[in-house]
Structure formats: C-alpha cells, structure tokens
C-alpha cells in the first residue's frame, strides 16, 4: 500500500465529511432519509395578508422574522391565555428551544398566493351543513370532540405532515423496500412500500390513508389515497389525494413537499414545502389515549354545567 494513496483517500474522506452537501445513501443506493427530524417552522402554513405577492424574504428579512417568532413563547404566539395550561418552555418544547430549519419562504404554501385555494361551492355547502349539525352539540359525546382530543389522529401527523405547536418530531427508518415514518404524536408509523405497488382496494379506508412510494432519482415520491370520510384534512373529503416528495438536501435537512388535491373541496390543487431539520432525539412515547383525562373531564364538566343550568332555571320552563 502506497502512503500517498492512503493520504489521498483520507483527504477525500474528510472532504466528503466536511462537505455540507454530502447526501448519504442506503446500501441499495437510494438517498438515506434516516434519522430523527423536526418539522418545526417559523413561517405559517398560509401567507399573512400583508405579505401578499411576496413568496420569499430576503436573507435579512428571514433572519428578522425568525428572531421575532422565536423571541416570544408559544403560548403568546398561539394566543393561549393561560400559560399554566401549556407552559411548553418547562419541558423544552417551546419553538424557541427546538431546532428550526431556516427558510426564505414567507409561508409553507408555495406560489404567488401562498394560501389554501377557495372551497368549491359543493364544499362550502357541505362544511356549512356540518357546522350547523354540530352547533350546540360540541360536548354531547366523545365523537363530537376533535379527533386530536379523542387521541385518534393528531391534526398535524398527516399525511400530509405539518408542524405542530410542539413536538413536531418524526423518525425515518428505511429497509430495502420500505421507508417508514414514525410521528411522535400520536406514535403512528407509516410504512411506505417503495415498489409503487397498487393502493388498497377502495373499500378499505383508513384515517391515515394508504401510502405507496417510488424513487424518482434523489426524491422519494409518495402517493396517498383511501382516506376515511372523517379524516377531513382542512375540510377535505375521502377523495383527498396526496403526493408527497422527500429530498435530502444535505446531512442536516430534508425538503418535504406535499400537494393536496380534492376536486370536491378545493378549486385547484395546492402545494406546501417544509424543511425538516435533523435533531438528536430520542422520540418519546406519546401515550395519548392512555393518559386522556381531558376528554372525560370535558364531558363531565359539560354535564355538570347542564345540570347547574337546569337547576337555576325557573320551575315550569322545562
């Protein structure tokens, strides 16, 4: 073995390790998306009205926005009044305490509008009817509470995956024929076959749909259908069709993009881009249902309030 060859090899290795754009590959030659990631973001899903027409910040503006967003705690940002209720900084969950990928985008939704397209007339009517049906019945029973409160599906776990108010953590594990995505909240694992196999039969509907993937060069493309009618991503129906794209940009980031289409809901498909940042982890167990005192307390409080109101009402008014 020639010493200069060893030196050259060592130099090449360290150069590769140093290079920020080194995208690792799995043994079967596909981009290695594995690791623990966060989708935490300093920009909202929809573009604020005052930034209409402005898709990107300048680097200085982006830095200023990040400073502004990270300078206040989540309970202020979310407009939650009682900091005792959700003081996320206590557990290191606050956005200002977690890693956030930098971005020049002014909203996660791409394009000149940066907003979810208008509902179709059919969707407007459907959603108005649903709201009318629910009005006054929000506390009738467990099924009247939001899915997240029931610990059935977390509103941001996806697909499509969105930043949550806290714990926007996910882990990706790959074998030769699958990419698996584990969301910390609510411990769901989506095992995506990458052989582009056909979807489940149409009669099998799932809260998280049915995801099938394939590789397009350096990008994992995932197609998801078979949602339940009750999944309702931002008003969607069971006809929701999602296309997700995962591209590892460098050792520390993945560009995640999704396109949502449902002709029964939106006047056109729409696309959002989220930069996932690599974090140390670990993921913790989010035993939501097992610790769900909230839903029982909410319902029993509603029953107590009804009882108190009935007792306070003048006799005969029943």
């Amino acid at each position: 073995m020639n010493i200069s060859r060893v030196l050259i090899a060592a130099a090449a290795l360290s150069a590769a390790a140093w290079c920020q754009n080194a995208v690792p590959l799995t043994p079967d030659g596909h981009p290695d998306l594995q690791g623990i990631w966060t989708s935490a973001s300093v920009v909202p899903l929809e573009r604020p009205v005052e930034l209409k027409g402005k898709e990107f910040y300048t680097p200085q503006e982006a830095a200023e926005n990040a400073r502004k967003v990270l300078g206040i705690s989540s309970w202020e940002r979310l407009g939650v009044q009682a900091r005792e209720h959700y003081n996320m900084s206590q557990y290191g969950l606050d956005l200002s305490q977690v890693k956030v990928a930098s971005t020049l985008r002014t909203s996660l939704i791409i394009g000149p509008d940066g907003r979810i397209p208008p509902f179709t007339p059919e969707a407007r009517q459907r959603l108005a009817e649903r709201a009318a049906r629910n009005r006054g019945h929000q506390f009738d029973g467990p099924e009247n509470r939001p899915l997240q409160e029931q610990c059935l599906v977390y509103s941001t776990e996806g697909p499509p995956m969105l930043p949550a108010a806290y714990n926007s953590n996910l882990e990706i594990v790959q074998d030769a024929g699958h990419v698996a995505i584990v969301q910390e909240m609510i411990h769901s694992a989506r095992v995506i076959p990458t052989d582009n196999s056909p979807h489940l039969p149409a009669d099998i509907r799932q809260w998280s749909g049915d995801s099938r993937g394939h590789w397009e060069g350096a990008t994992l493309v995932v197609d998801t259908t078979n949602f339940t009618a009750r999944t309702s991503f931002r008003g969607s129906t069971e006809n929701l069709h999602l296309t997700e794209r995962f591209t590892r940009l460098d050792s520390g980031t993945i560009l995640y993009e999704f396109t949502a289409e449902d002709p029964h809901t939106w006047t056109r498909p729409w696309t959002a881009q989220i930069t996932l940042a690599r974090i140390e982890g670990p993921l913790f167990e989010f035993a939501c249902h097992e610790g769900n005192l909230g839903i029982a307390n909410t319902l029993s409080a509603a029953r107590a309030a009804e009882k108190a109101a009935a007792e306070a009402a003048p006799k005969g008014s029943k």
Partner: protein
Amino acid sequence: MIARVLGLLSIGAIASAQSPYQAPRTADGKPDLNGIWQVMNTANWNIEDHAASAGNLPQLGAIGAVPAGVGVVEGGPIPYLPEAAARRKENFAHRWTDDPEIKCYLPGVPRAAYLPYPFEIVQSRKTILFTYEYAGAVRIINMDSTKEAPIDSWMGWSNGHWEGDTLVIDVTGLNDKTWFDRAGNFHSDALHVVERYTPRGPGMLNYEARIEDPKTFSRPWKMSMILYRHQEPDARLLEFKCVEFVEELMYGHLRKKTGGKP
C-alpha cells in the same frame, strides 16, 4: 399429564433448535427480519396451558369463546411470589373488565409480540422499527446503544444487538400498567425483558422472552414461541386504531342524555 409432558417437550424442542438454517441477509450481512410477522397460538388469551372455555357475553356465542392452547411458559408454572400469586387470582377474576387490552391501551412487551394482530419489522443497521397493527403501537430498537431508558413507558426502552444470527433486545423502562395476557398474568415496573429473535426456517422466527421482575417473581423465567411471516404478495399492516371502538365503554356514561327535551 401426558399432554403436559408433550407440551414441555415441544417447547424444549423450539428452544434448543440451534438454527443450522441460513437466513437471507441484508446488505450489511445480518439476517433479514424485514416483513410482517404473527404468532399462531392463543398465548394472548393465557400464556399458560388452558382448556377452551365460555366467553363473557352470552350473545356472542362461539365468537366470544376462549380457544384452548398449550402454554408458552418454559418449565412449569410462572414462579409468582406469594402476594403476586394472590393478585394474579384477583386479576383473573376481574379479567373481563381489567385487562388493559379492553381499553385499547398500548400492549407492552412481550405481549405485543403475541397479540392476535400482525406486526412489521423495518430493519436498518442503526435502528430497527417494530410497528404493531394493534393500537398503532411502535417500538424503536436502538442498535449498539447503551443509553438507559429516560423514563418509564408502556412500550419500554429497547436496546438491541446481534448475537450471531439472533437479534437480542434488552427492554427496560416498562411501566406496571400492562398485562401479559387476557388471563391476568402481570408484572411490576421492575420488569426487565430480554427478547431473542432467531431465524428458524424460511418465514419463521424463534421468539423467546426472558422475564425478570424481582418484585413479582421468585426467579427469572422464559416464554418461547414461533413467529410466522405473512406470505401474501401485498401483505401489509392495516389500521386498527381501536380508541374509536372503546369510547362508548369508557365515556358512554358521560354522554348527553337525549331522552328529554333539550
């Protein structure tokens, strides 16, 4: 008695099978455990020997009945400490209300392995994912990590390593809220499980779980069984988000009564 001896013999045969079988390999040369696995036994009803018996709801008839099964516990009865043996009896008496599976709670380890639902292994070099159809339970196996459990949890903290062709998983940080089966066999939060997954033949794994819990048992003991790989070309885990199916049971009494005038 004879059946019992035969049962012991067959379990002994499972445990001593020193797999001469050469399992397919992953790119890094380890046995390829990828796929969807499930037991073909009734251990989830009772990990010990049990005859068939009636269920709890007469209207379910044969559907609700308990099928018989040879136990998966090696070497005789589970060595409960006296107090724990009394608690196990209590559990059995209240099994139709107290089994955490009834409430769709996370199953813990080792029970997750022999639930009557499939689970999937996604095997990588540094991390192996175990994902279970029941309740969407998930375990992340840290390979070559000696990190300790940061906190107790339902599915515990899993550190794995390879011993020859065997995937050995050391599971700690388990809480005391799960049972081993529907018959009230239980453990404390001192539970320490060592699982061993060994290829046995095409589409088969020997599964062994060593149970150590000095608060509950007088000595460590083992259970062993076989896991079978689903062979259907498009076999995959489907959703079983059972929370939805237990809401009436758990919260029905808090529902608004619709009988009277609103």
